[in-house]
């Protein structure tokens, strides 16, 4: 029997990010692991109810734990084609077996790792002006990510 409380999801948008290179690495933290700075160069987004571009600036400063789990802390802005600015704040995890992590870390052009070979999930909040797009600021979203040579691509689902 299906759990009646199981969250139901609805596809909301996909965000494609081109990330600046090189990322900055702070290694050998006293508490273990590494801290990174990954800045966003450009990007775009599209879904059934909205589309637009990613504003330059912003990025993420993930903590890569001793167990090689990436813990995201991303903040940047989307601009809808109608001009509305939307803030996205993401936390989440990326992890995989060591050989997959190593491949994801140094992807070469043309190298595509199947997304089911790793876990890349985001817990996401949006903020925007009251009005047409404020449904974004009233729902929880879950993102499913892919790591590409040029950056990240994430598909976001609204929790109904």
């Amino acid at each position, binding site marked *: 029997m299906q759990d009646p409380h199981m969250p139901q999801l609805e596809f909301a948008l996909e965000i494609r990010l081109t990330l600046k290179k090189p990322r900055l690495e702070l290694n050998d933290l006293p508490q273990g692991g590494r801290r990174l700075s990954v800045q966003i160069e450009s990007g775009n987004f599209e879904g059934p109810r909205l589309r637009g571009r990613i504003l330059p600036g912003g990025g993420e400063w993930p903590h890569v734990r001793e167990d090689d789990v990436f813990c995201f802390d991303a903040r*940047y*802005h989307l601009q809808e084609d109608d001009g509305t600015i939307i803030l996205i704040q993401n936390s989440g995890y990326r992890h995989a077996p060591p050989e997959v992590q190593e491949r994801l870390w140094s992807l070469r052009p043309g190298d595509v790792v199947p997304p089911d070979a790793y876990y890349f999930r985001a817990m996401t909040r949006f903020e925007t002006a009251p009005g047409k797009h404020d449904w974004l600021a009233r729902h929880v979203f879950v993102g499913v990510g892919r790591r590409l040579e040029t950056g990240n691509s994430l598909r976001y689902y609204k929790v109904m």
Partner: protein
Amino acid sequence: MLPAIPKFDHAFRLSLKFREPFRYPSTTGHRAALNIASGTAKGPKFDAHVADDGGELMVIRPDGILDWDSRMMLCAKDGAMIYLRARGHIMAGIEGARTFFETGELSASKLQLSPYFDTPKGPHDWMTRSGFIALGTIGSGLADIDVFHVTAE
């Protein structure tokens, strides 16, 4: 016995230049975002420059406070990367906050921050086990922020 009154040592001055801010209304209140064009940290205990664009998010509160939440990566003179996260308040005043939201111009305002650092193990790692407060002034495009280390005394 009362706890000791905290004592402070000046650690460094953080001088930042910002790009043009963008402002937007949101369901949380008015917001602003700033990115760093360049910056330095200079002092007896630290010498570094800002190595990324940073990311400063603000909520422009109706009571004239700009609620500040920032991250940035610094690069010390010896090449070590230092991560700085800070939250705090800019005392813009009701009129100053309104002008900032409407025009992007911020008249010189006091700020108070609570910084947190990640560093690699080594000469900078005292910053990962010390308390800090930061006091300074921010105006249009510029901020000078003095960072104080809470001593063990």
